[in-house]
């Protein structure tokens, strides 16, 4: 039986047998389709669930941990911030504009599904090198798509990151993170409750979008067959989602709904069975009651369609009229498509005919989980980057680094995003290391009254994780925490998206296992819990696996956003200092400099003393949060000289930094966790204590580092390298 349907749908023979056992019969076509999606990597986390258990999920500020559509943390005053990051990698590789747009649409739904009003989006993008026409096309499409959706729906895109590496040439990564704000008492679970309650489908009509998407697009390797998947590309409609969002938030605010769930991958199948599973109930769904965009859809197609902008709600029969009234006012379709039962089965009806009947537990809990078989590779598996930098002269290296696509100014990109709507944005992109948002934009400035807020950053340098999955991931977490520290924010929680290759390959399994362990260890040391996340595996095709790319997004609390420093130098005459963790190490291994020089990726980075880094992070956080510092910036890619140049560019003012003449490029451009460039009045710098070393003074129109100097204009010209990509 070469073409057994279950194999085509991605199920193994033994999984298929297990399904037959659970049903006590062979599944029919619809049931097989539903099982194949629910038991896909994307929905069942077959290869990652066991590992995820290692992540710490408890903390003093945690309100809602992994398991719900988004996690949530307490920010005081009875308010919560819900947030999550999610991938839309494969859809974006097929159609970047719609793939990225619907990625944003999907993560927004996860956030308002828990009752939080979305207040910010961040994007984390990976493409091949910019010389490639395909990378340019994907970059342009993804950025336009993110802007299209976020701008149109009125949620600011306040931050993000983008890297260009050959390892992503065949498999771009498009991850989107969303944050929402809610009163604690409004946080809503997706658990279906109350036998006899009605199941209401809200939002867009159901079409053939993304059929096969979850099992094929979302968890298989891409190949030349892409063509055949094309007609099922999902199209985003931010206008529809805006109305659905407003209707849902109003309904939750009135307490009309018993529970709410978004429709994402695997559509109705996944959303309904998740709701039933969480509520320990059953559901009957009548597909003939689902409003269709195309009349002739089959029941199985309706069950697995991934049409966007749909939500599933449970409502008491007595409150249906209220629901209908609100939806009508927002011009949102709402149809009763089923009811909550006590059967603990998902029954699918087509009018009177039962066309599917599956135990909820079998769908949600019984998918076999697989153990990884990790094996460390003996040698680096990734080819050396192409050499693009010949010079060893530091005077030349700095502009080359600033102009490298990974470090150049992101302004041409983020100016395509509305970063201001909702009037919360206190620190915008390229003003500070983390976005800073006011919690209460309606408050007016009053002397002596702090303007409370939050900060958020997203990080993950895949190349460094490729060098050392454990240490690279520790660094990503620490960098996020460092970014928050620079604006004085105390971390509350973290979300993550694990973007990896095929976990059935031993070295990918090893990357995944080491990476998750690194994340767990760093978070335990920092005392920060994971509130949720997403896993995207099988990111590989002909060109081999991507760099292992854990993307981490951290949210922190800011006591007074008005005090949050940016990273730009400010006033001439102020002191510049390097603040470094005890024993902080700097090395060219795995650095951007090494990349430009075409060096092999090493296997292993210098180990990090996380406790020492934590100490310096806390020092910077306290100083930044108290308003003592003019600027604070963490030293990351491109090392100290690059960080100084970034402070000069953001402030539009030069600096004179003493340098002891040794022009060792490693000291200037080497990388390593636990270092910051800060500026401020001399007394404030001195008050930082022994971890801080004064290295220079703000002023002039040049960045001077010992014998080296560059004008502000030269630096700006160098860092404008991304502009042509969006001409």
């Amino acid at each position: 039986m070469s073409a057994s349907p279950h194999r085509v749908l991605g199920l193994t023979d033994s999984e298929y047998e297990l399904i037959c056992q659970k049903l006590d019969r062979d599944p029919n076509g619809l049931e097989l389709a539903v099982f194949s999606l629910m038991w896909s990597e994307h929905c069942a986390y077959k290869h990652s669930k066991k590992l995820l258990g290692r992540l710490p999920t408890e903390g003093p500020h945690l309100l809602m941990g992994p398991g719900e559509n988004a996690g949530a943390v307490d920010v005081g005053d009875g308010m919560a911030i819900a947030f999550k990051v999610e991938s839309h990698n494969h859809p974006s590789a097929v159609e970047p504009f719609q793939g990225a747009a619907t990625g944003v649409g999907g993560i927004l739904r996860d956030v308002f599904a828990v009752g939080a009003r979305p207040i910010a989006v961040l994007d984390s993008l990976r493409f091949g090198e910019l010389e490639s026409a395909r990378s340019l096309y994907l970059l342009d499409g993804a950025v336009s798509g993110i802007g299209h959706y976020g701008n149109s729906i009125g949620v600011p895109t306040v931050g993000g990151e983008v890297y260009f590496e050959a390892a992503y040439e065949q498999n771009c990564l498009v991850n989107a993170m969303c944050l929402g704000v809610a009163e604690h008492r409004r946080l809503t679970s997706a658990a279906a409750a109350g036998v006899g309650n009605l199941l209401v489908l809200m939002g867009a009509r159901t079409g053939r979008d993304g059929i096969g998407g979850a099992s094929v697009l979302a968890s298989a390797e891409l190949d030349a067959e892409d063509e055949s998947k094309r007609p099922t590309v999902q199209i985003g409609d931010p206008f529809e989602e805006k109305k659905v969002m407003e209707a849902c938030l109003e309904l939750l605010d009135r307490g009309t709904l018993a529970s709410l769930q978004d429709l994402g991958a695997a559509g109705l199948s996944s959303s309904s069975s998740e709701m039933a599973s969480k509520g320990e109930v059953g559901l009957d769904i009548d597909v003939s009651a689902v409003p269709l965009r195309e009349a002739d859809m089959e029941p199985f197609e309706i069950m697995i369609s991934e049409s966007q902008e749909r939500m599933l709600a449970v409502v008491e029969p007595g409150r249906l009229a209220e629901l209908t009234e609100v939806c009508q006012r927002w011009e949102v379709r709402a149809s009763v498509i089923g009811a909550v039962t006590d059967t603990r089965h998902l029954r699918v009806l087509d009018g009177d005919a039962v066309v599917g009947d599956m135990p909820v537990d079998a769908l949600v809990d019984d998918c076999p989980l697989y153990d990884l078989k990790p094996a460390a590779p003996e040698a680096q598996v990734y080819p050396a980057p192409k050499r693009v930098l010949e010079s060893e002269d530091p005077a030349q290296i700095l502009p080359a680094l600033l102009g490298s696509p990974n470090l150049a100014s992101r302004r041409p990109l983020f100016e395509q995003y509305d970063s201001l709507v909702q009037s919360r944005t206190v620190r915008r992109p390229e003003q500070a290391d983390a976005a800073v948002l006011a919690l209460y934009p309606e408050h007016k400035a009053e002397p002596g009254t702090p303007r409370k807020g939050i900060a958020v950053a997203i990080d993950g340098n895949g190349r460094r994780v490729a060098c050392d999955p454990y240490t690279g991931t520790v660094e990503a977490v620490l960098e996020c925490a460092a970014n928050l520290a620079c604006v004085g924010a105390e971390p509350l929680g973290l979300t993550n998206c694990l973007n990896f290759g095929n976990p059935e390959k031993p070295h990918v399994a090893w990357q995944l296992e080491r990476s998750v362990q690194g994340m767990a260890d760093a978070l335990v040391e920092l005392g920060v819990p994971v509130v949720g996340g997403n896993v995207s595996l099988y990111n590989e095709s002909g060109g081999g696996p991507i760099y292992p790319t854990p993307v981490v997004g951290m949210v922190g609390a800011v006591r007074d956003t008005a005090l949050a420093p940016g990273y730009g130098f400010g006033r001439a005459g102020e002191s510049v200092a390097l603040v470094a963790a005890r024993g902080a190490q700097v090395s060219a291994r795995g650095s951007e400099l090494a990349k430009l020089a075409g060096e092999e990726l090493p296997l292993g980075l210098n180990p990090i003393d996380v406790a020492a880094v934590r100490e310096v992070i806390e020092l910077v956080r306290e100083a930044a949060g108290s308003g003592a510092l003019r600027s604070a910036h963490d030293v990351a890619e491109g090392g100290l000289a690059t960080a100084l140049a970034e402070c000069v560019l953001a402030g539009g003012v030069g600096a004179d930094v003493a340098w002891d003449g040794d022009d060792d490029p490693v000291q200037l451009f080497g990388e390593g966790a636990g270092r910051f460039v800060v500026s401020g009045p001399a007394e404030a710098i001195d008050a930082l204590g022994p971890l801080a070393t004064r290295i220079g003074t703000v002023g002039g129109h040049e960045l001077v580092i010992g014998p080296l100097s560059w004008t502000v204009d030269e630096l700006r010209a160098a860092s404008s390298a991304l502009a042509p990509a969006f001409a």
Partner: protein
Amino acid sequence: MKARVLIRPKEGILDPQGQAVERALPALGFAGVEDVRVGRMVELEVEDSSQIEAMCQKLLANPLVEDYEVQLVDL
């Protein structure tokens, strides 16, 4: 030679703009309008009309989600 390329969302693909227009028309007093699709039109002067097909595939249309049709307007 003047050519006109008409590009529309593929059959079965969601057309948010078409939907919005269709919903707006009755309120403006236009009844009996259905199946509204909003697409794009590209007009161009080409020397060699045999290139147009390839241009559509590569740049003008997105064949993943759009159908197109070429009209030649000889002058």
